[in-house]
């Protein structure tokens, strides 16, 4: 790659991004393609499509994914905020259009023009929320916290109407975590926690669909007559039949009867063909991305970048954890894909935007440290001075 002395935009990008993060994401994309080859042929056969139909489509989607991710990662934080605002407005418009004009698939209106706009809403929402929280913390003249608080109901209302409880849950958790990380008073941490618990309880009590799922998880027999735990049981059979090192690529048999083997339950297929060891490896990549992202975020000086990177990583982490937990029957079934591994075009592009944003906001920016330390100097604080010295040493080693 470019020498460190080179000052071109590309060289600058290469030396300032988090290259470990990029490598981990690259590994996930490659693993995802391999696992799609394992998980999707039986599904394609069941649908009467050529066996590699989904593999081809996924492979084709990889190119725009990588392109979008890299392009987005070149943005400055200011551009990131603008891009997020634009994406948010467009996605919201499409979601409302889907609600009004979209046709129903499996009981909900999520699709319009071949895409699922709620997927694109997620990274944009995180950026906007991070923006609002950082402004709310920094300045008194902008009602940042107030904006952040009204952003949540605005975003999840159309999702509840779809209905899409998986995305609602995800967005609410990320929002709550952002608020928590912004330094919310402990009073509210417990207050909102209690409200969330109460909300879950109310949903259980009054939304039959949620209640049915929870009951089905706790006691499969309570569903009234027919015990339908086929999907989860089959997923567990997959892990058991795979053992530590799996049956080998293409040797899986349980996957042939596993519904959603290429999307929500691809982790189970991995367990059958590549073994529990491979599953542990994939889980460790996700853990690496999430933990590294959060630690980097905690060290980031710019509040917006800190919240944005923490929020994006959180969303990525929660999605992966929920999907794996569902596969392992630690949680009731939720329509949640495994990031970069599960099949799905909209989801890939949305993830690309999210990771692009993440890389963009975690780039090392000496300028901001200098500005910050200069401000601190004006206020005559020794602590900040030390930071300034540290920054100087970092920039001019």
């Amino acid at each position, binding site marked *: 790659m470019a020498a460190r002395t080179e000052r071109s935009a590309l060289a600058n990008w290469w030396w300032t991004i988090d290259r470990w993060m990029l490598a981990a994401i690259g590994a996930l994309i490659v693993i995802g393609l391999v696992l799609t080859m394992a998980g999707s042929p039986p599904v394609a056969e*069941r649908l*009467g499509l050529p066996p590699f139909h989904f593999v081809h489509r996924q492979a084709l989607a990889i190119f725009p994914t990588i392109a979008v991710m890299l392009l987005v990662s070149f943005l400055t934080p200011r551009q990131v905020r603008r891009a997020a605002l634009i994406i948010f407005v467009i996605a919201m418009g499409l979601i409302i259009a889907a609600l009004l004009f979209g046709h129903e698939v499996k009981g909900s209106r999520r699709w319009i023009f071949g895409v699922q706009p709620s997927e694109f809403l997620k990274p944009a929402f995180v950026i906007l929320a991070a923006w609002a*929280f*950082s402004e*709310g*913390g*920094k300045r*008194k003249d902008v009602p940042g*916290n107030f904006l952040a608080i009204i952003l949540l109901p605005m975003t999840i209302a159309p999702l509840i109407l779809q209905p899409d409880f998986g995305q609602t849950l995800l967005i609410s958790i990320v929002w709550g*975590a952002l*608020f*928590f*990380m*912004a*330094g*919310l*008073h*402990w*009073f*509210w941490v417990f207050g909102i926690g209690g409200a969330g618990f109460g909300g879950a309880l109310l949903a259980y009590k009054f939304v039959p669909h949620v209640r049915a799922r929870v009951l089905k998880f706790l006691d499969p027999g309570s569903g009234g007559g027919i015990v339908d735990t*086929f999907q989860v*049981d089959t997923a*567990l*059979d997959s*892990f*058991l*039949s795979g*053992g*530590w090192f799996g049956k080998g690529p293409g040797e899986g048999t349980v996957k042939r*009867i596993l519904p959603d083997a290429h999307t929500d339950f691809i982790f189970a297929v991995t*367990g059958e063909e590549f073994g*529990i060891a491979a*599953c*542990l490896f994939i*889980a*460790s990549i*996700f*853990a690496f991305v*999430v*933990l590294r992202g*959060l*630690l980097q*975020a*905690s*060290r980031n000086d710019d*509040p917006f970048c*800190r*919240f944005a990177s*923490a929020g994006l990583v*959180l969303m990525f*982490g929660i999605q992966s*954890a929920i999907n*794996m*937990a569902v596969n*392992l029957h*630690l949680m009731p079934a939720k329509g949640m894909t495994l990031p970069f591994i599960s099949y799905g075009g909209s989801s890939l592009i949305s993830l690309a935007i999210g990771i692009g944003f993440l890389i963009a906001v975690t780039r090392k920016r000496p300028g901001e440290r200098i500005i910050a330390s200069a401000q601190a100097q004006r*206020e005559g604080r020794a602590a900040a001075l030390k930071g300034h010295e540290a920054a100087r040493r970092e920039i001019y080693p």
Partner: protein
Amino acid sequence: MADGRETDRNLGAGPGGAPKAGSGRLKAFFVKLFSTNLGKSPLRIKLVACVFIGLYAVIAGKLIWFGLHQEPSIGSKRSGDIIAAARPDILDRNGAVLATDIKVMSVFAEPRRIIDKDEAVELLTAVLPDVDASDLRKRLGSRKGFIWVKRAVTPQQQQEVYRLGLPGVGFLPENKRVYPNGPIAAHVLGFANLDGVGISGLEKYIDGQGLADLHGAGFSLTPESLAPITTSLDLKATYAVRDELAKGVAKFKAKAGAVVILDVNTGEVVALASLPDYDPNTPADALDPNHINRVSVGVYEMGSTFKAISVAMALDQGKVNLNSRVDARSSLRYGRFTIHDFHAQNRVLTVPEVFTFSSNIGAARLALMVGVEGHKAFLRKVGQLTRLHTELPETADPLVPKNWGELNTMTIAFGQGLNVSPLQAMMAVGALANGGLLVNPTFLKRDEQAAKRNAPRVIKPETSESLRYLMRLNAEIGSAKKADIPGYFIGGKTGTADKIVHGRYAKDRVFTTFMALMPADKPKYLILTLMDEPQGLPETAGYRTAAWNSGVVTGKIIERVGPLLGLPPRFELPTQPFPLLAKLGYGMANIPQSGGREH
């Protein structure tokens, strides 16, 4: 509120940012409450990271758990799609087949490969008329890869389906369970369902012995590779017993009836019939609650047959001997209850007379001599107060009175107030007869040694011989005369219990039992016949007591199955049938009372 102060400082809100003293602390409090604190966020983010470490640790832990626990799940979960498994043959004690597997073909369809569903439904239902057309159309319309059209078709039907030439319709060989003897021994065998899973009776017992585990582990078993199960039943005797019982039930217009022949030395159930019954080849009939096994699932007040237990208890504990006398001059009063005798003699009775006249007063007085606690302990010792466990999964707990007082002891002494299963009562009477060992009944073949190895002694051999003498005496001069078939030296005891209807004893509905010991000198078989609500007939002079119905049926059964079970009639009376009693000074026991009716 240290948090709040920190908030203000870190917010760096210029000189005017400090809360004004005048506008009140309340406002300051709310400002603190609603403002966030950027200074805290690095620590908070690390907290969130810790939560994630926990989440991923749980996921990794569950994965590792899967790696360490690799026992395959039992395949019966998806039994709808598996092929009926092989089961071992079930044989009677002489090797005759009671249940076996046969190979049959089953028709399946792959809905996704069927071109014209309506045509397929039309043609298939024409060949297989008992397949429901609308249901088949619905299932063919599903997106499943495999459905059963009909399990176990005949070879002719298979040929016809084959000739239809429908794509997406095929055959799979399966094992079908067949019970060649129909309802004979149905309650013992139970049945297995279409998938080869034992649902009741011995079939379920076999599954519990590891067969289901073998299937679950994926062993493809053939009937040839499985050792057959040899039961204790004798097919011919069971047939004869059921036949005689059916005639008896029809004649006396009883609601139900049952007969068991128990080998008192080995505990083997040699024959069992319970009517009404069902044909295990059409297992749906087994679900009718009227078709239960009355011998082990039903619990009943056994009536006077329990007097044998009471007399044995009193004799064994030395409270009385065979010459003792018991006051039965007048009815026995207890509080507002009065106990009468059915054949009231209104005099002092000897112990043998208590037995042969079936005196309620006498039995109650004998039990009172032992006392409430002693009575309970003895009944527990002979297995009447706890559930009887045999190979059959279908058993019932006895109904024991909660507050057991003197009145309970008095009524239970003559068989009212304690409900036990008939097989349970037979186990106790068998112990009274066989020399005093309580042998647990079994439905599998077993020899005497194995049976007596863990059989506890419950009464002394002398007591047992006394009981045999009393039962023999009862057959010679008492209520069991109807079953005293010449040449078999039968002993017997009748029992008639009033049934409880709407919480009170009904005078016109009875439950009759008859226990016969054959032969009484060297006991081999104990035969129990019971009838539920037999009616009085003109030829029984309107009597509906046990001797007139259960006793008569038992006599016919003895006559018919004796030779089948290797007991030909003896033409010589045993000269010393009760040697122990003779030694004890009861020489009269060996003198026939009936003046040589045996010949």
